[in-house]
């Protein structure tokens, strides 16, 4: 039995809850909460333009966050836009870039693995521009392969919008090869990294993707903050998505001009406290190292798969996944009945379509249970899950399911 040195950093676990829902949102280490407290308790200032101490410190921490994030993913500072979350970032790309660049007949490659936040903006842009959505054919496991991507790619492809890690299947998309192929035909690649950023080392300059979006709340950070990375030349060429305070240069009654990116895309007062908290979250991740985190996840994940596989009534949809996400069902028990049982045992899972209906359709299921393993999970959590699953199977059988 290993002891988990990180559990103590997460006060939410004090209640004794078995938290296996990180894919929905992660817990937050105390240091992140302390940063928020520092902002609200001691600063509570708006950024830029203020000259008093609190405003200056807040502004400095705010801009340092941008630098921290840039270094974290190998980007330039000017390529980091603060957003409300992954969803907002992906909408910005779809509407500021996509609407302006797509013509009838152009093709947008997506996949059935996409979260609705990575799919719906492009479905809408396709509708408005006359561009066509193309779906990468998933292999028998449900994975995006380079070969299948290559078959979908054509001279008409202008945008490739793919998830880095599926929030249902947990598979890692072979993005490096895909980006390289897409660029050969001059398509841009938009990456949904919401389920990757917290455990995969990302270097955008190496990956060479054009845009990449993720959320703070899934990477130990606060709610209400996300990041959109974009290549500088693309960002500079794009129109703003929202208009308002602080994103403008000159304002005249007849016409106005915008700042350069990233400020051009940050209209109005940003979620300042959450920005500051995100810096601390990244520092916490860096202090451990994503490599160590993913190794830990892998160990616990493999243990979970081994245990769950032994229960006849459990169907796992992604046994071969290389990340911490496990999607499964109990035979004859609808996911929403099962999840209520788990909740009563203080085992935190999630049931439903996970904002990814297309992959549920592909799997031929209406919904499923999802357990997701992260840094602060232990073998003991898995044991609790397995025990709860066994009890649930028994309970529902006896009820007559």
């Amino acid at each position, binding site marked *: 039995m290993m002891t988990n040195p990180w559990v103590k950093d997460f006060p939410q676990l004090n209640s004794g809850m078995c938290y296996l829902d990180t894919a929905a949102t992660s817990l937050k280490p105390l240091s992140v909460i302390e940063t928020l407290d520092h902002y609200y308790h001691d600063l509570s200032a708006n950024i830029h333009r203020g000259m008093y101490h609190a405003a200056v410190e807040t502004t400095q921490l705010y801009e340092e966050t941008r630098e921290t994030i840039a270094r974290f993913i190998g980007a330039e500072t000017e390529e980091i836009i603060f957003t409300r979350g992954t969803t907002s970032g992906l909408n910005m790309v779809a509407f500021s870039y996509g609407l302006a660049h797509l013509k009838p007949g152009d093709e947008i490659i997506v996949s059935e693995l996409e979260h609705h936040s990575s799919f719906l903006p492009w479905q809408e842009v396709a509708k408005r521009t006359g561009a066509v959505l193309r779906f990468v054919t998933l292999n028998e496991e449900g994975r995006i392969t380079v070969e299948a991507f290559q078959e979908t790619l054509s001279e008409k492809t202008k945008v490739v919008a793919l998830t880095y890690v599926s929030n249902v299947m947990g598979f890692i998309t072979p993005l490096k090869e895909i980006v390289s192929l897409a660029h050969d035909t001059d398509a841009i690649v938009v990456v949904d990294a919401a389920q990757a950023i917290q455990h995969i080392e990302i270097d955008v300059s190496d990956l060479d993707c054009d845009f990449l979006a993720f959320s703070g709340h899934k990477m130990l950070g606060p709610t209400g903050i996300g990041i959109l990375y974009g290549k500088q030349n693309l960002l500079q060429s794009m129109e703003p998505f929202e208009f308002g305070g602080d994103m403008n240069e000159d304002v005249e009654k007849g016409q106005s001009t915008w700042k350069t990116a990233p400020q051009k895309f940050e209209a109005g007062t940003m979620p300042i406290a959450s920005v500051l908290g995100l810096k601390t979250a990244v520092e916490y991740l860096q202090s451990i190292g994503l490599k160590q985190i993913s190794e830990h996840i892998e160990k616990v994940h493999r243990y979970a798969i081994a245990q769950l596989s032994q229960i006849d009534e459990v169907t796992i949809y992604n046994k071969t996944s290389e990340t911490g996400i496990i999607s499964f069902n109990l035979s004859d028990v609808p996911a*929403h009945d099962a999840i209520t049982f788990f*909740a*009563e045992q203080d085992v935190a899972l999630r049931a*439903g379509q996970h904002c990814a209906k297309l992959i*549920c359709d592909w799997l031929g299921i*209406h*919904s499923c249970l999802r357990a997701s393993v992260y840094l602060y999970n232990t073998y003991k959590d898995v044991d609790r899950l397995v025990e709860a699953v066994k009890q649930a199977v028994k309970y529902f059988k006896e*009820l007559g399911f």
Partner: protein
Amino acid sequence: MSGLDNLYREVIMEHYKNPRNKGLVENENYKTFRIKNPSCGDDITIQSFVIDGIIKDCRQEGHGCSISMASASVLTEMMIGKTVEEALEVAENYLNMVSNKQYNETMDLEEAEVFSGVRQFPARVKCASIAWVAFKDTLK
């Protein structure tokens, strides 16, 4: 576990296993309404057939959890024979009961009474409501 047992009452399990009035009819006199709950995957269609202000038939079809399936079944059985007015009143009261709002406790909710256990499970209120909401829409 007592909470859970309160939810999965015998009547509910019985309706879940032996759903009443299941299967839709192709008849344009039937008003049909379908609701898909995008987060949990429930998908329920209700049909009702009204003559002279009286519900002559009520059908249901779909898939979902035991609570949503059973509540659709109970609904159809209860509603057949009621006037539209009565039906709407009962449905409203039922929906208030399961969502833990003020409701008329003196009104007879018949078998639907067993869904009162749902109040302890706020996350399951939608499961117990979906068929009833669809039903109300068939009467619009």
